[in-house]
């Protein structure tokens, strides 16, 4: 199903011509209106007229998160200060956040892309979408809300609230789709089990859209099996629109990134040099239609690769592979680079293991992984538990080249957060 068939299936040459026009327009606008880019262009000795092809985009300056922090609160605005209609922020780990402004058209576009994304998974106006993401400064709640309303769904703006209330809404209003953090989806499945609620029989749930946290294919499968539903991966970041800029279609084989709104590049995360299509590197995005706050070559820190082959769904917008991890999330333990997703993949493909885990770095450079057992993963045999621990330690050794200490803990004993899951605690004295 298509929301905007013409835009979604535009032939590549036409799509690229359109991209070039939008890129040139964006570059002209920031050169006129944004002092930050005026400075950068002067440093690099480039003028808007120099951008004659899409390849010329690589001559443009990068925009880093640090630039957004430095521009806080409104240094990157390309419109008059009274023109934006909405503000979102992206949390900084320390101090001030990154502020992102949206004009009326920007909001309209973000809803439009969200609508395309939902419809491509089969959502219709008959669906009841319970939005369990946080509303407010975080984009996850509002952007999905506007998109689902546009499709004509009944949208329940539940927010992250308590599991008790989520279940009540789901039962009373016959929720068919949820927008939810993957870690919370796993937790909520356990909550249902404890309540004796069988989601296959007792709920009308058919689909879940999960995002805002990097997660693995194994986690998706677990959620699908726990509820008996289809789970679609959603990619986004506040600096762009939030959710809905990249989304899976019914084939669940990579995230279609809406290329009529964003220019995709994959670069070497260290050198910043563009990488050939299909190679894994850092995703760099340029907004092609943003009015309030256009961003050129924004370094997302997300590690992925482009899938060059066309998708069976007929959309011409290229797909990205599942995000391997955010470069910021990478851990370095005893000189080895480790993404938490590598650990998650091993855990989530082990049936005796539950949904929650915690990576603890401590001492000089020691890694311990606390692993919750699945409720059904305990058969009373200490030998089986020792065997499981040994088996996990071996898998970690093979995958990570580091042998962590594996600690098995009872189901439900690790802390659960309502927001994004906290999976790593670093208290090393390095």
């Amino acid at each position: 199903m298509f929301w905007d068939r013409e835009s979604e299936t535009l032939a590549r040459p036409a799509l690229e011509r359109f991209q070039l026009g939008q890129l040139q327009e964006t570059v002209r606008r920031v050169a006129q209106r944004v002092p930050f880019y005026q400075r950068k262009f002067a440093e690099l000795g480039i003028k808007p007229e120099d951008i004659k092809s899409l390849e010329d985009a690589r001559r443009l300056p990068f925009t880093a998160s640090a630039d957004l922090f430095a521009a806080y609160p409104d240094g990157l605005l390309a419109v008059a200060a009274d023109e934006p209609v909405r503000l979102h922020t992206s949390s900084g780990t320390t101090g001030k956040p990154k502020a992102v402004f949206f004009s009326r058209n920007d909001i309209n576009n973000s809803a439009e892309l969200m609508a395309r994304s939902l419809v491509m998974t089969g959502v219709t106006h008959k669906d009841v979408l319970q939005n369990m993401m946080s509303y407010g400064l975080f984009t996850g709640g509002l952007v999905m809300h506007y998109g689902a309303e546009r499709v004509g769904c009944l949208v329940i703006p539940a927010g992250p609230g308590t599991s008790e209330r989520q279940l009540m809404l789901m039962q009373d209003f016959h929720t068919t789709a949820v927008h939810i953090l993957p870690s919370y989806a796993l937790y909520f499945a356990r909550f249902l089990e404890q309540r004796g609620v069988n989601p296959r029989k007792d709920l009308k749930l058919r689909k879940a859209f999960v995002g805002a946290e990097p997660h693995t294919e194994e986690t998706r499968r677990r959620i699908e099996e726990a509820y008996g539903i289809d789970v679609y991966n959603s990619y986004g970041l506040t600096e762009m629109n939030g959710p809905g800029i990249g989304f899976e279609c019914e084939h669940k084989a990579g995230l279609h990134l809406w290329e009529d709104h964003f220019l995709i590049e994959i670069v070497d995360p260290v050198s910043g040099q563009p990488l050939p299509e299909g190679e894994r590197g850092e995703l760099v995005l340029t907004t092609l239609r943003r009015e309030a706050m256009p961003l050129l070559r924004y370094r997302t820190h997300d590690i992925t690769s482009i899938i060059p082959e066309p998708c069976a769904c007929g959309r011409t917008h290229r797909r990205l592979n599942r995000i391997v991890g955010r470069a910021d999330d990478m851990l370095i333990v005893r000189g080895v680079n480790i993404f938490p997703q590598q650990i998650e993949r091993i855990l989530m493909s082990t049936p005796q293991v539950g949904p929650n885990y915690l990576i603890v770095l401590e001492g000089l450079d020691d890694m311990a992984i606390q692993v919750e057992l699945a409720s059904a993963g305990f058969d009373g045999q200490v030998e089986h538990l020792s065997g499981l621990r040994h088996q996990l330690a071996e898998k970690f050794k093979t995958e990570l080249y580091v042998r962590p200490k594996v600690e098995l803990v009872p189901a439900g004993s690790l802390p659960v957060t309502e927001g994004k899951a906290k999976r790593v605690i670093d208290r090393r004295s390095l």
Partner: protein
Amino acid sequence: MNLVAVFVENKPGQTARITKVLADAHVNICWVTIAHSGSFGVMKFLVNNPDQAVLSLQEKGLMVSRLEVLAIEAPNQPGSLQAVADCLAQHGINLANCSGFVANHRAILIIETPDLAKARAVLEQQGLRLLTPEEMLSL
């Protein structure tokens, strides 16, 4: 015969936490063993009211499982354990866990094995008596 097995973290106070749940539920423990393996272990109980024990432990968020074992009564004399072990060995049955004691001049052996049904059959054939839970509780 069923034992109640509980996952326990190897931290101070964990055993007391579990036994308190059983005490508060007025469950009487007739036999107990704790097996530890590093940061965790398993406590196994024979109790007078296993259903209540499982329910109360689960309510407190503990991981519980039931474990089927055999309680064998052997003559209280030299060579009894040997006879049991020999009988199982001859039929290719492996012992997973085993513990034994003498109470009121009766020698009792509690065994866990993956081949429970087969073990039961060969032991009874050998003329050994397998105790019911009621018999175990009234030793």
